[in-house]
Structure formats: C-alpha cells, structure tokens
C-alpha cells in the first residue's frame, strides 16, 4: 500500500465488518469503563450495578427476560405498524385533500403534545392489562413523525418530473404512483430510523402503567423491589432490541434507496 492513498478500512474487511468492529470496540470500552468505575469506587449495587452483574442476572434468568422481551417487541412492532399505516394514510389524505390539511395537522400536534405517560393509565382502565393499550400508545407515539415526514416527501416531488407527467396528462393516481410516492420513500425511512427505536419506548411506557407481561412490567417489578441488576438487565434487553431495529431499518433503506447512493457517489467524484 502506497503512502499517498486515502485512509481506508483495513484491507480484507468489508465496510460493514469494519462498522461492526468499531461499534463493538466503542461499546466494549464504555462498558469496561463503567465496570472499572463501579469497582474502584465501590458503588453499592442498589445504586448502580456493574455490567458484569447485569450480564450474570440476564444469564441466570434468560428465559424470563427472553419472554418479556418477546412480548414487548411484539407490542412495539404492532404499534409501529399501526402508527406507520395511520401516518402514511393521513399524509396521503391531506396531500390530496388540502382543505383539511391544517385542521388535521393541528389535531395531530395536539396528540403529539399530550404526554403519553398521562394517557397510558387511562387506556389501561379502558382496555385492561392486555396488549391493546400498549399497541395504541406505541401507535400514538410513532404516527406523528411518519405523518410529517411522508407529507413533506409527497410534497417534495421534483417539479420538473411533475411537469413531464403533466405534459403526458397523467392522472392524479399516476402522478402519485410514478412521482409522489417514490419521492416520499427517503423521508419515510428518515422517520423510521427515529420511530423504530421509539416504538419500544412506547410499549414500555404503556406496560409501566399496568401490564401482565413485558419488559416494562419486569422493570416496574424490579424498581419496586429495588432490584437494580434486574432493572438494568431489562434496560439492556431494550437497548439491544433498539439497536437491532435501527439496524434493520438502515439495511432496508440501503436496499430500497440504492438509486440515491449512486447519485451521491457521482457528485463526490
């Protein structure tokens, strides 16, 4: 390798593999630092447990946490799906029915501004301890960023492309299908990157307000008993799922929006 080459990832490693290495290294460093501080300063377990203890707790009750994580993940994904569907549907509606756009957006902001912590207990009273209130809270939290982003994307369709479709006398549906909808995809993915990890927060907040299963319930139980290792173990599970969801969205984005990458690459040259 000559010295005048630009810095590159080590030879033989794909960029993705290199990303994984760097992520693992930085996370490992942070956890190591945490472990050292807890041990050196002798911090009591009821204030801050060391990562090693958290991992031990996780390993000892793997089945419990696995089950709770599965419940929370299912609720989060169902809520995310509902929020996504509602956000996209409303964005399309107000793009074409401009008369109601302001009113609908005002209502959406009202929902957005309402603290979900306050609504969660109410929904539990209405719908019980089952999954429904969790799905609703998650949907309410996730739909707003999707709505705003997709709405922006639908309106951001290239004027020049719209002019070409106009010259062909394309119908509204054809303009939607060939210009507006694909234009909204990059915006949709930007929203998904925010909203996918957020869906877990929605599900947990709802579970905190009363649930028969899930990580939120595990956390609430651990908190009530001042069982900090269990509380942190649940947080650890959430973090892993959040990172995984984000990764899946990023991967899907790269697969779907490959045409955007080629354009950027050309501008770089």
């Amino acid at each position: 390798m000559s010295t005048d080459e630009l810095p590159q990832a080590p030879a033989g490693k794909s960029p993705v593999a290199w990303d994984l290495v760097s992520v693992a290294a930085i996370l490992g460093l942070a956890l190591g630092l945490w472990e050292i501080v807890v041990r050196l300063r002798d911090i009591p377990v009821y204030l801050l447990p060391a990562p090693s203890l958290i991992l031990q707790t996780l390993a000892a009750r793997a089945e419990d946490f696995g089950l709770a994580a599965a419940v929370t993940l299912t609720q989060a994904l169902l809520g995310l799906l509902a929020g996504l569907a509602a956000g996209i549907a409303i964005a399309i509606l107000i793009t074409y029915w401009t008369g109601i756009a302001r009113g609908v957006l005002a209502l959406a902001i009202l929902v957005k501004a309402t603290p979900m912590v306050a609504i969660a207990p109410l929904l539990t009273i209405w719908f019980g301890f089952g999954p429904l209130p969790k799905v609703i809270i998650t949907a309410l939290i996730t739909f707003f960023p999707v709505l705003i982003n997709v709405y922006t994307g639908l309106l951001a369709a290239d004027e020049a492309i719209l002019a070409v479709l106009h010259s062909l006398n394309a119908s509204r549906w054809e303009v939607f299908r060939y210009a507006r909808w694909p234009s909204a995809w990059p915006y949709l993915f930007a929203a998904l990157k925010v909203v996918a990890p957020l869906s877990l927060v929605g599900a947990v907040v709802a579970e905190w307000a009363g649930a028969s299963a899930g990580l939120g319930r595990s956390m609430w139980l651990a908190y009530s008993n001042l069982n900090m290792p269990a509380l942190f173990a649940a947080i650890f599970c959430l973090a892993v799922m959040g990172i995984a969801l984000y990764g899946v969205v990023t991967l899907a984005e790269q697969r779907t929006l490959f045409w955007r990458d080629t354009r950027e690459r050309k501008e770089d040259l």
Partner: protein
Amino acid sequence: MRVTLHNLSKTFNGRRAPVKALAPISLEIASGEFVSFIGPSGCGKSTLLRLIADQLLPTTGAIWLDGQSPTVRRAEKAIGWMAQNPALLPWATVRDNIRLPLQVNRRHNRPAPLPDTLLTLTGLAEFADAYPGTLSGGMQQRVALARTLATGARLWLMDEPFAALDELTRETLTDEVLRLWKEVGATVLWVTHNITEAVRLSRRLVVLSARPGAIRALIPVPLPYPRDATSADVVALERAVREVLHA
C-alpha cells in the same frame, strides 16, 4: 403538427404590478417545420413554449395545434415536452424511464417507436438497466430525448434542452435531434439563447425582443443540412441575427 398562434399574450400578476411577459404574438408554423425562438433572457420565450404546452393559460389570444387547443392535444398525449432539466425518475432504470409515456394516460397511446428501438436509436442500448444517477448529464438528456420520442407526439416543445451541457456534448446531441427530427417528421419548437445552435438547427428563426417579448424578425434559413457552423453562409446568418438582437 401545424401550430397557429393568434394574438397570443401573457401577463403575470406580479407582486406590485402586473408583469407583461409576452406581447401579442401571431405566428404560423407549418407541420414538420423546425423553428427556433431566440431572444435575450427574460424575453418570454419559455413562457411562450409553456403556453403552447398547456402549462399556462394565455391572457389574450389563442393557440391552435392542428385546429385544436393545447388542452385537447395534451390530453391526447400529442405534445412532447423537454426542458433543461432531464427530469428523470431517479428510482427507475433508463428503460423504465423511457417507458414512462406508455405507462401513463394509456388510453391515448399512439404508434411510436418501441422503448428498445429508442434505446438503440439514441445510443443507450448498453445503459438500459442503469439508473439515471450513474449517467453523465449528456446521457441523461439522451434518455429524456428518447422518452419524448416514446410519446409518438408529432410536436416537440424543447426549452433549452441542452443548455446545461458542455459545448461538445451539446453539438453531438443537437445533431442527434436533427437526425431524429428528419426521421420522425415532427414539428419542433426550439427555445435557445445560442445563436449558432439556432442557425445550425432550424428552418426558421423567430427573434424576440426584450420583455414583453414581441416578434422582432422572422429569419428563414434556406441552407441544406448538415450545416457547418464555420461556413460562410452560417456565419453571415449569425451576424444578421446579432444585428436584429442588438438593434
């Protein structure tokens, strides 16, 4: 397609006062003619083309395209539109971009060269499955040109289509347009601010005055194709156009 402009004018509602973009213009363009519109920036030549393309409505006067209004002709997909921005769908391959005119407003599909024929005709065969983002500006305009041809329209409205390209690419592409125009026999309305290009391409030049655009002169170009930009006849005509523009 025969183009008739009768007393055509356009006034925009400006922020403070109305802006007269186009003074009343009357003009007759024969079917199969190649006419260039040339004039200073802001003289309303693009406005004129957009009026004919049914993107704007005239303030006064009328436009007839083979005896029908632009609205009717656009509904029939009988107008080919091409501008400086190639306006390709970045998420679609070159072939799919060229197929676009066949995908929309299908009721008015008309006989036209097939997309694969057009790919060959415009020298894009090997890029059929490429995405626009990977192509150079010149290649992107080739795709836009092929897409215009795919409509099968007999009227091509071209608003400075190659103005953003380098001189060399521009010359190659204008020669291509000439070749395709002769093959198809379409009527071409070409807007440009490049005098040499206008003289090399068109059968007739329409020189417009500064805003509000009015016809200053109609200059026929009775030279055979292909025209050498450095030949005495072309240079003499260029000089004549310049004199009218600066008068």
